[in-house]
């Protein structure tokens, strides 16, 4: 089958039971997408499929055939994405395990709704778990990047 990820086609041979998260990591070599719980609770595996943030551990790779998939590897184009810069500036990560999921979650939300309020950002971010930061700096980073993207 073919997976279309970050603008590139990957020809892979997988069993039907292979999740999209595993296929990205093991078959496409895109290990930026992390796997935490494998049952939909933590959000570490969040990717963008046809414009919407989804849990890659709850979709089989075969189901994603024909879809446009974006992972954290596709964010930086000629330099870090605004949201990545703000994560650095606001200390939005410590161990970094949850970071790819949070980045994709926030990017999808902001692309769907450019004028996210801080309350809406908090609601969006409640989808994912972080064991290190206590969330405050993630919220600050996402708010700051939303402001910057609105201004430019």
């Amino acid at each position: 089958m073919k997976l279309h990820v970050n603008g590139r086609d990957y020809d892979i041979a997988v069993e039907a039971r292979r999740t999209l998260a595993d296929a990205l990591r093991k078959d496409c070599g895109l290990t930026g997408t992390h796997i935490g719980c494998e049952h939909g609770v933590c959000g570490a595996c969040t990717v963008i499929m046809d414009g919407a943030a989804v849990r890659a551990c709850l979709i089989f790779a075969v189901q994603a055939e024909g879809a446009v998939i974006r992972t954290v590897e596709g964010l930086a184009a000629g330099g870090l994405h605004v949201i990545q810069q703000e994560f650095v500036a606001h200390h939005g990560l410590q161990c970094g395990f949850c970071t790819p999921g949070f980045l994709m979650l926030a990017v999808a939300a902001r692309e769907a709704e450019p004028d996210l309020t801080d309350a809406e950002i908090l609601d969006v971010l409640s989808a994912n778990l972080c064991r290190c930061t206590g969330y405050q700096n993630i919220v600050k980073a996402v708010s700051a990047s939303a402001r910057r993207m609105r201004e430019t």
Partner: protein
Amino acid sequence: MKPCAFIYHRPSGLPEALALLAAHAPTGGRVLAGGQSLVPMMAYRMAQPSHLIDINHIATLQGAAMQNGALVIGTTTRHAAFKTGICPGPLGAMLGFVSSHIAHGPIRNRGTFGGSLANADPASEWCLVMVTLGGRVMLQHASGTRMVAAGDFFTGVMATALADDEMLTEAHLPWGQGDQWGFYEISRRAGDYALAMCLVVYRLDNGLMRDVRLGIGGAEATPRRLAAAEAILAGQAPTGPNFIQAADAAAAMLKPMTDHNVTALFRRDLVRAAVRRALHHSLNHE
């Protein structure tokens, strides 16, 4: 945490899907909708289907439209589709508000209305909506169709009237004119399953409540309407003291579950609070 092997089918039409289900259900074939409950169960190996029939590509099963005073919801209409009002008026607003309590954004982007009904989790918001409004589901198999009332469809914790070779294809939600509604859910964190929730719908006639429907979910094996609480409210003004009476009656007649989250005793208190707050919410949606 890896699912067991299965054979994947991606039909593009309903007859093809029903034929596949008829062929494979006897040997463990199952429908795959949003996968937001089934895939976790497969990861735990609690579910080990031999065949999965993916219904996400059947265009006729998606979307919702009003027909004869009822909203007809295609089974694979995703939770996220309800966010901004799937239909005009109070019904669309109510469904949008309720949908925001189901899990989180990325799960709502995949999970489906019909999948939630077929899954029949006691804490499912959509199951509560169906029972409270007196909805019906359409169940189809390769050689026939039947309509089942929501009250008869849910038979226990994650148990329904669906036969193995049957597919839920539509949900019908009736809605009267000018209805008032209120909803309140108690859960540990945003997006968690409800420990108790209440949906109330009524009509105001010269300042008095009529046609009151009050449903509780998350507390017993299946959601249900509480006739005693409805009777206390019917013909009365929507005031705090009346709301407290109804909440007390609801809490008294319920037989709440004890589970790893909370005891039955505590759940009874949560139901009382959820009923009172849902009734207040019906007066003020801010």
